[in-house]
């Protein structure tokens, strides 16, 4: 009798514990309301603030666009049920100005106040991101400064032509930085995002350039017959992983940025592309068709042995890595033509198990954030595309529509 009693209690313990954990995650997020004190209401700015608060994983933002005087500490009774109220005022007479006040909802005590001003009106979304990022810091929540960064991407405009574009993570801000010609595969060169690498296909041989986004200064890094892509940059910026084909055979090379010398990393008669530094950056993960179809493999930079990373799917043609985390896109349907289902999976260099992060649509270009906590990806569905974000810790996810032609490659 006592054993049955013990068994029943144990089973109940595990079942209830799982549901309690989920409820606790929701409850743990800080309830916050937004009060707009701007002279001219900007509903788009309000939505950007809401998206920032949501994707941070730390806030449960009220959906109502409250209006109120920013300088007063009076709070509507309906707001008292929140933990914090963020009052803000946005002005765009000349440039963009934002003032924020973070108040405790219980008694209106001011916790934080800051003002921001930039000469550009178009860069307004970045002020929202900066405000939410600062609030996270003030409340001592884990860092979300990734949302302040530029996203850089290339898209085709007409056959044989492309443009490279800077954007904020929501794609509300977009600016073409190189247009005309065929310039592809942009990749940030440094963590401060002052320069980026890209491949120019305007001549007979592709050339890899490094360009400063503020001065436009361009430095030629490498050239190769056939194909040339910078797929990753070592954290210290001193080495690059390239896919190049000096003898017409695409393989992964490592380039020393100061000497411009290259060292071949993979040797295979088929296709080896998309190399990414892994773990302590002494090894790489990459895509290869050495099994007859695109799949994900890893190898040491100075070793010859190659090992398989993914053991499911018949077309895993994109991969990214941060430390030991590996994300990849896997084709789930078998159509030879027409749209297929691709899903994003998360695995690790330390394990063979993988879990799906998406379930429907064509999801590609998985990219981990600079802190490894958020995944960017592109979702194609019907005639539209969206950029998606998944916060791995909080499980929050967001989609933002992208207009125009589909993305060719992206980095952030």
């Amino acid at each position, binding site marked *: 009798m006592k054993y049955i009693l013990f068994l029943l209690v144990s089973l109940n313990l595990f079942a209830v514990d799982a549901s309690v954990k989920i409820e606790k995650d929701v409850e743990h997020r800080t309830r916050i309301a937004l009060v707009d004190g701007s002279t001219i209401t900007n509903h788009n700015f309000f939505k950007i603030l809401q998206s920032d608060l949501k994707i941070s994983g730390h806030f449960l933002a009220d959906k109502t666009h409250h209006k109120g005087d920013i300088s007063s500490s009076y709070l509507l009774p309906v707001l008292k049920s929140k933990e914090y109220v963020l009052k803000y005022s946005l002005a765009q007479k000349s440039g963009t100005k934002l003032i924020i006040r973070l108040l405790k909802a219980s008694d209106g005590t001011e916790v934080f106040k800051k003002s921001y001003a930039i000469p550009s009106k178009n860069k307004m979304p970045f002020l929202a991101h900066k405000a939410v990022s600062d609030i996270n810091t003030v409340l001592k929540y884990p860092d979300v400064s990734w949302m302040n960064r530029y996203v850089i991407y290339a898209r085709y405009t007409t056959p044989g*032509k492309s443009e490279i574009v800077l954007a904020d993570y929501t794609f509300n801000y977009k*600016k073409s930085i190189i247009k005309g010609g065929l310039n592809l595969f942009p990749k940030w060169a440094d963590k401060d995002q002052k320069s980026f690498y890209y491949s120019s296909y305007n001549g007979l041989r592709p050339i890899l350039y490094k360009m400063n*986004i*503020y001065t436009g200064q361009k430095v030629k890094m490498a050239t190769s017959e056939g194909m040339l892509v910078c797929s990753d940059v070592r954290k210290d910026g001193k080495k690059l992983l390239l896919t190049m084909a000096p003898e017409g055979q695409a393989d992964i090379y490592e380039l020393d940025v100061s000497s411009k010398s290259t060292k071949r990393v993979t040797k295979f008669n088929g*296709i080896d592309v998309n190399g990414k530094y892994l773990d302590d950056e002494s090894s790489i993960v990459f895509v290869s068709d050495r099994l007859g179809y695109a799949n994900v493999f890893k190898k040491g930079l100075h070793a010859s042995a190659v090992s398989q990373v993914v053991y499911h799917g018949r077309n895993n043609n994109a991969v990214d890595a941060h430390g030991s985390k590996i994300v990849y896109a896997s084709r789930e349907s078998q159509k030879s033509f027409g749209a297929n289902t691709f899903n994003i999976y998360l695995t690790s260099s330390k394990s063979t198990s993988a879990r799906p992060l998406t379930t429907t649509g064509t999801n590609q270009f998985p990219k981990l954030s600079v802190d490894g906590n958020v995944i960017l990806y592109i979702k194609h569905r019907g005639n539209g595309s969206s950029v998606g974000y998944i916060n791995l810790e909080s499980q929050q996810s967001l989609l933002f529509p992208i207009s125009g032609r589909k993305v060719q490659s992206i980095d952030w």
Partner: protein
Amino acid sequence: MMKKSMIITVMLWAMLFTGCSQKAPNLDVEEGTNNISDSTEIAGDTVAIDENKYGNENSANTDGVNGTQYNSSSDGFQSIYFGFGDYGISSSMENHITTNTNVVNSTNSTIKIEGNCDEFGTDEYNYALGLKRAKAVKESISLQGVPESKMVIISYGESNPTCTRPTDSCYEKNRRVDLRLVK
């Protein structure tokens, strides 16, 4: 014995209601790790480069010299077409290789061999696939006695479609290698 069972049961229920503690947030937040420092970096004006001076060298030429519907090469060459994901020359394309070899032998110019793909899959993989196709064509022509130094290969991945409709016949037309003289 019954009392002991009750005590154990009560202890188990106590653990159940206590639950597992939430992991405390990381309080060691490093400030200033983003790229906006009170508006100085984000205020910086980024450049806007226009490379439209580059002409339509890379644009597919659908008005093939031999007038066939399926030919985006120029200068008398015939495009070579491939199956989905393939980079081997099929037997149906061998007469195109022969035609192209004759054109190469009739000129002193360098030949540019351009590999292309349909739009499926990521572009980096497609660029490599396009290059394999271009290499296969180059090797087939060189087997006919043409020096490899006379030919340059490049891959345009999915950047240069001859057809942009989402149809199977369109995808077939894009999975190709084009040849043209370097001028």
